[in-house]
């Protein structure tokens, strides 16, 4: 698979003590003391020091170790301690002019225990990549040999290896002739290529296990309880390296060093790369998670890469807004400055589009700029939250997430659910209540419009996946068929959720006969639990995270799920919603993607997310209060312009990120700018794009600009990227051209008031970009008008076309 190990190791090995930065304090070795119990299992000593600059310095390979008793234990140049015979030894290390010591006890059993299929061989199959989805982990296997995906099911893999194929995979009489060894070594043709070298650790484990008889594990085999990674957090300089260590803990209390057998991944490769041995090489400034997987368990560490020398002065941490407090604290840690707050015009456009889905009109811009009140930004936020368009905009967002659509529900049910959502938004219904009402709804749309949510589910699978993704930000689909590839969820977790939702069934709504898709949500409280296909046994309801609540018989189990989900102490609900709402204002979540919360995808700023979630709970799930907290922060109001220290940062909210307006906001702003409406077939004439009840109104514009089609409960369904076909439409198609030349279009309306050139140019800018022109833009426009001579109307149309095609209209700055 990845054979970059020797390449990466070479420079690290050559690092000598002279190249080390000056250290403050004493270096620390982990573990601080060692007990070795296996002759073939060395343990790694990870040594870390602190530089005067504040950086962590990995001394693992720079430490010169000496053993007081080399006959008992010794250390190699990479920091691995091997046991030789029973006894005690003291290891003394020298690194960067400092010394450290580690006591070692060697207690070997009289005979070396045999290799375990589960704890030794299975990790080899994972480490070698044998059970990856593209190889033998593929659902149909590969070349007749099928393994469970990523080693999820040793009980299935053992017979596949030892029994199938006439036992040719394992040759007990002549172990080296086993296909299981010869194929990955490349000694026999192998479509998957050479997976490991002769004499490597992976080879020796596989060959050793076969030589020992290829035995299955005894039922008394201890189970893996947990995996941890050290260091949990490292702050390093660019080009530095950091060795990580992975430790596995078993049910019998023992611990093994599985650094060599874990599988590593970084989530931001721009920042750092990791090799097969857990050695991370920092590349560029920034932050990344380093995830290690061993068997089925993940452990995650954070690596932060900071400039080596910096005259950075930490900014005072604001105390008046929880957002700014945590963002600035994190930026100080990263030695990044925050960009200044943006000017009034750009702030206003940003907050209008984000809160009500349309940009401000000229008179609103001018009035706001002229307003003297110190708290005018906070005041405009309050005013916007009372606007009708606020309800349109946030109902649209919820309609997307809840997939309210005539694809899946009837026409009357879709409209009723739309009104239910709008009423909830308008009354600022606490979000926990909103979620509970949806997740426990029953009956037909005439009884309870929220029941449309369940009516849109094909089955309990659909319901549990939608509920988990929307209200807990967790994607469970993968765990339906196999353990989640990036998370610890298993099929027991999946079917445990399934059992909360499997009492629901749909039948035709008797009050709406002959109406397509008109359905009533029924709950059969006597339905049994769902069956886990892996075990074949009924899986009792199980919350995300493992607890299985005792539930009375014949109850609607959804009630318990909804209660658990929206309880203040629930670890998913408030956190995922705070994260989701955050993303609506920053173009990315604190955890991103916002509906993919998992251990291997940690938040970029955990205290910030925790504080926002706590604030949401404290405010009794008041979404407007959450929005207020976010948009009144300096963090939200920062300029997109970058500073030298924050130009590389696109994750920590040190400056705003330009982003394209969502389809509906773009169209509604275009309509407002030009004064020429868009007609949607099937919707009332005056409907704005944000008011459309679902995505089934044929609108080429909205499709082109990525309106969510409501097929998926995923934020990613909305596409806010730019593409060439959009540009062709804006340049050459009807969307803009026909509007700017229209008799009732903005240029014609303005000209009818007979303004002079300066006023006309100002107005065209205000309507299109929601700001006055800069000096350069004004000069450009004046020159453009001159070019057109007496064709002033055409000049106005074409200038307006240019402004509507410019970045500052299409993107939010």
């Amino acid at each position, binding site marked *: 698979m990845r054979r970059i190990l020797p390449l990466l190791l070479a420079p690290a090995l050559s690092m000598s003590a002279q190249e080390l930065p000056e250290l403050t304090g004493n270096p620390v070795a982990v573990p601080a003391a060692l007990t070795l119990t296996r002759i073939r299992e060395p343990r790694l000593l990870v040594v870390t020091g602190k530089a005067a600059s504040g950086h962590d310095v990995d001394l693992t390979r720079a430490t010169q170790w000496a053993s007081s008793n080399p006959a008992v234990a010794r250390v190699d140049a990479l920091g691995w301690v091997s046991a030789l015979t029973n006894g005690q030894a003291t290891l003394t290390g020298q690194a960067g002019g400092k010394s450290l010591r580690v006591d070692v006890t060697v207690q070997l059993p009289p005979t070396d225990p045999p290799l375990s299929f589960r704890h030794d061989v299975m990790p080899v199959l994972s480490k070698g990549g044998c059970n990856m989805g593209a190889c033998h982990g593929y659902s149909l296997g590969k070349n007749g040999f099928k393994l469970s995906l990523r080693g999820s099911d040793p009980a299935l893999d053992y017979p596949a290896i030892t029994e199938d194929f006439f036992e040719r995979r394992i040759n007990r009489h002549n172990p080296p002739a086993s296909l299981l060894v010869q194929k990955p070594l490349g000694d026999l043709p192998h479509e998957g290529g050479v997976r490991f070298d002769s004499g490597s650790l992976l080879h020796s484990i596989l060959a050793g296990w076969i030589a020992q008889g290829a035995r299955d594990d005894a039922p008394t085999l201890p189970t893996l309880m947990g995996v941890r990674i050290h260091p949990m957090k490292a702050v390093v300089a660019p080009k530095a390296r950091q060795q990580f260590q992975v430790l596995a803990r078993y049910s019998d209390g023992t611990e093994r060093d599985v650094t060599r057998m874990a599988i590593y991944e970084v989530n931001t490769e*721009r920042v750092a790369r990791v090799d097969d041995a857990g050695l991370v090489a920092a590349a560029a400034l920034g932050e990344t998670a380093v995830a290690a997987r061993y068997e089925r368990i993940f452990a995650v560490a954070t690596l932060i890469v900071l400039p080596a020398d910096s005259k950075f002065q930490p900014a005072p941490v604001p105390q008046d807004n929880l957002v700014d407090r945590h963002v600035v604290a994190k930026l100080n840690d990263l030695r990044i400055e925050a960009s200044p707050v943006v000017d009034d015009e750009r702030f206003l456009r940003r907050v209008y589009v984000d809160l009500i889905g349309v940009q401000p009109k000229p008179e609103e811009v001018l009035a706001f700029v002229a307003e003297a009140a110190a708290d005018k930004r906070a005041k405009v936020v309050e005013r916007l939250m009372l606007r009708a368009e606020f309800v349109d905009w946030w109902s649209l967002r919820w309609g997307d997430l809840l997939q309210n659509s005539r*694809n899946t529900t009837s026409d009357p049910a879709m409209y009723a659910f739309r009104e239910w959502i709008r009423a909830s938004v308008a009354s600022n219904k606490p979000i926990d209540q909103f979620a509970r009402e949806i997740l426990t709804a029953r009956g037909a749309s005439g009884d309870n419009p929220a029941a449309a949510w369940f009516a849109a589910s094909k089955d309990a699978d659909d319901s549990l996946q939608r509920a988990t993704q929307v209200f807990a930000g967790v994607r469970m689909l993968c765990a339906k068929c196999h353990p989640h590839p990036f998370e610890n969820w298993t099929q027991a977790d999946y079917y445990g959720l399934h059992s909360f939702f499997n009492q629901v069934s749909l039948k035709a709504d008797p009050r709406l006969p002959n109406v397509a898709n008109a359905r009533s949500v029924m709950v059969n409280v006597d339905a049994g639990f769902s069956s886990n296909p892996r075990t074949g046994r009924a899986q009792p309801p199980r919350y995300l995270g493992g607890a299985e609540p005792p539930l009375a018989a014949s109850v609607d189990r959804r009630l318990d799920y909804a209660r658990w989900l929206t309880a203040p102490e629930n670890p998913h609900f408030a956190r995922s919603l705070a994260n989701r709402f955050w993303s609506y204002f920053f*173009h990315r979540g604190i955890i991103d993607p916002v509906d*993919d919360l998992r251990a291997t995808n940690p938040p970029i700023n955990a205290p910030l997310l925790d504080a926002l979630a706590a604030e949401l709970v404290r405010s009794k799930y008041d979404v407007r209060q959450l929005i207020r907290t976010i948009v009144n922060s300096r963090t939200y109001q920062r300029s997109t312009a970058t500073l030298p220290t924050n130009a590389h940062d696109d994750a920590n909210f040190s400056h705003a990120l330009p*982003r394209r307006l969502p389809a509906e906001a773009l169209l509604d702003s275009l309509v407002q700018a030009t004064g020429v409406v868009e007609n949607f077939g099937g919707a009332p004439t005056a409907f704005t794009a944000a008011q459309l009840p679902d995505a089934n109104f044929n609108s080429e514009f909205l499709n082109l600009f990525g309106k969510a089609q409501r097929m998926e409960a995923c934020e990613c369904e909305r596409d806010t990227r730019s593409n060439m*076909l959009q540009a062709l439409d804006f340049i050459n*198609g009807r969307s803009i*051209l026909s509007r700017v030349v229209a008799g009732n279009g903005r240029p014609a309306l303005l000209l009818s008031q007979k303004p002079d050139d300066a006023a006309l140019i100002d107005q065209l800018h205000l309507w299109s970009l929601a700001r006055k022109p800069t000096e350069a833009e004004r000069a450009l426009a004046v020159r453009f008008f001159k070019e057109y001579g007496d064709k002033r109307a055409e000049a106005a149309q074409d200038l307006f076309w240019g402004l509507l095609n410019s970045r*500052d209209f299409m993107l939010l700055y």
Partner: protein
Amino acid sequence: MLKIGNVRVPLCDGVSRRSFLEAGAASTLGLSLPLLNRLQAAGAVDESKAKIKNCITIFLVGSPGHLDTWDMKPDAPENIRGKFKPIKTNVPGIQICEHFPRMAKMMDKVALIRSLHHKTGASHENGQRWMMSGHDYSEANKQPYMGSVLSRVFGPKGALPSSIILPVKIGNTGTSTPHGQESAFLGSGHEPFFLGGDPALSTFKVANLEPPAGQTEFRVDARRRLLKDIDDVQRRVESGSTLERDTAYARAFNLLTNPETKQAFDLNKEPDKLRDRYGRNTLGQSCLMARRLVERGSRFVTINHFDTVFGISCWDMHADGGSLNNTYADYEHLLMPQFDMAFTALMEDLEQRGLLKDTVVAVLSEFGRTPGINGRGGRDHYPSAWTNFLAGGNIRGGQVIGSTDKLGAAPHDNPIEPPRIVASIYHAMGIDLETTMMPGPGGRPVRFIDADPIRELS
């Protein structure tokens, strides 16, 4: 971490800095050097270039009867075998219809699949969805067209769109359900680019690339200069979104104005003799244009041989005496000669230019036609058996895959369903279907198609 083609799978990552273009093709893109530099600075240029082949699909909308074309049953009763006779081809044992004399001479390059069938409805749209996407999907569960998959996963190879459909969209073919030529969950940036005009007309222009009516050249030009000036003034901040927007505009303007790019669509650059060889009709000239487009960087070009089945002479041979009155006469005097000319001209031309080994040519239809001739001398829709064929790319020609029974009523051996044709096209383009993924609904990585390529084809 998963990769899609050469590209990391952006699992719903919002601002994704995927490859907007490839370094090797940058010069042909006509992007300004400063923009190119800025893109490179942002890591947007993918240095790796996808080594996959191209595909030209001739989609026979309406669908020819297999018994009248490539799966003849001369020994069947008269009301089944039909009017035409089979002829020998240059491959011993393979016979096709007498009205494809040119094709018969290059049978060694063509692989016929005679056991195609599908099991959903017999509407044209069912078949269109099957053959264009490999799925018969519903409106609520759209699946992407092959060209959109190619565009999404492998990106543009030059200034031209990756996926182009000639000459126009499929319009009314009976029901108002999808035609299978849409990007579905892959996003609007990967919708096919429709030419929107008939390249056989002397007045042909690419509709989307012409200034709208009433626009003077002066204004078009002035606006373009204006936008460039505004862009220069407004350029303050770079981010994934701004680069994406700038790239989109640069590519659009390149298509609109770059004379070299526009030439891809100009058949007057081709010798008259070659144009004649393809046939001076919509199909012939579309095939010629397809070759020009593939030559200049398009990855997947489909020619819709007809955009409707109503009121025109086309493959939909119901002979109903009304708007669907296609008959044997249409086949014999118009459709088959046109196809024979165009298809063989395309094959020869590609081969002479050394492009055939890098270009899969697929001739597809929605279904076959009933073995029994109807009361008015026509044949009706028949999804239970039909023949399509592949050539070029990695396809081994001169063979027949599968067969139908004596009456052409059902697959006799090796029955093949549409997903395997789609898989075979991808495979023949050199794509490893077991390791190459695309972002599926909700962003999770999915395979292009859950079907195995037909192994005998390569």
